[in-house]
């Protein structure tokens, strides 16, 4: 199971560079590794979420050709935080999932922006938010909700067949 999860995280990070462009809607691509990290962290707790976020983020950094460690750091933080808070969140409700993932995406973006600013990242935050972060956050929210619903449906089918 742990191998499968590791493969999922690892695969999610690499898949982002290859699969996400195919999911593009009006120029907006979802952050698949973030969704995977959040879902895993909710089920597996903060340690797993942290490692998953680190690995997925590192792979994203590598795939993007940018600074190694930026997304590894932000996603590790997100994975840890969600894993720690997961038990207190009613995450099975789509009304929580969608805004939750939207907020997490925005939070991750803010941390990433802050880190990048240390390395003289030129883009202004306002434009970045309007054109990249918020559309992606909305997309992540809806895609995440779809993932959660699909997973719960698969689990219910498995439980029934067992």
């Amino acid at each position, binding site marked *: 199971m742990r191998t499968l999860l590791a493969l999922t995280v690892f*695969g999610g990070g690499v898949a982002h560079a290859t699969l996400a462009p195919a999911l593009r809607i009006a120029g907006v691509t979802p952050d698949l590794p973030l969704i995977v990290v959040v879902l895993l962290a909710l089920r597996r707790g903060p*340690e797993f979420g*942290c490692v998953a976020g680190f690995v997925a983020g590192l792979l994203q950094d*590598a795939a993007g050709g940018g600074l190694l*460690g*930026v997304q590894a750091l932000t996603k*590790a*933080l997100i994975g840890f935080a969600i894993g720690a808070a997961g038990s207190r969140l009613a995450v099975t409700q789509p009304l929580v999932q969608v805004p939750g993932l939207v907020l997490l995406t925005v939070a991750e973006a803010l941390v990433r922006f802050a*880190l990048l600013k240390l390395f003289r990242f030129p883009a202004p935050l306002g434009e970045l938010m309007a054109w990249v972060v918020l559309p992606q956050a909305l997309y992540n929210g809806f895609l995440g909700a779809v993932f959660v619903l699909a997973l719960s449906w698969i689990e219910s089918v498995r439980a029934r067949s067992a």
Partner: protein
Amino acid sequence: MRVRKFALLLVLVGVCLGLLTLQSRGYGSRASDLVAVVTTPLQAGYAKLTRGALGVWTTYLDWKNVRAENRRLRAEVQRLRVEALRVRETDDENRRLRQLLVLQERLPLATLPGEIIAREWGGWVRALTVNRGRADRIARMTAVISPHGLVGRIVDVRPGSAIVQVLTDPASTVGAHVVRTRTPGIVEGEPRGTIRFKYLARAGAGIRVGDVLVSSGQGGLFPRGIPIGRVRAIDDRGSALFNYAALDAAVDFGRVDEVLLVTGPTPQDLTAYFPSGG
């Protein structure tokens, strides 16, 4: 347990910050290369996989689009065919009416245009119904012509229509002569829907296949010189008093739609007014 969690987080954050620091000092390429060694083959594999899956999906979408487009184009083709037929029909009608108008203006005759509204095409009777009748002061025996030649005569006049006995009617006879030889005779309708020229054997020695026949104007019923047909074959009956020539009618009676009704007498020979007048 709690400490272990935070220790892990701190280690990972430390690794990240370390990486960032190294990169900011120009030592980042080795770390990047190391990660790339692992990720590049995976990315290539994924790309192949997704490309394949997307290829199938795209092919399916293309196929669906092609089907929809095919359906749409078929409907469009049908619509355009109908439209083309309508245009062709209108064009044809336009051409016919123009010919009729030209003929009407050119002929030194008082004529009235009419439209064929019905056809009686049984072997016993071959007649057309024209939309001119008593209200238009049409009289019996009025000659009916078309731009190609003689159609027939009015045999019955009704309030809003008239019956035209066409030349192929078995009861139809019209005085005619061969343009080239001036051989006189009678054009008769035949039960099989054709016409033939009956002439005195001794007067018709020179008639040849292809000769044009026009109305003779004898009797004053039909104007002189209206094309009737061309000789298709000669039926030489030896010593018989009359010989016959099978004719190709100048007018396609089955397709004539507009005609002119000759409402006044004409003293002239009209041969020159028709295109096939010899």
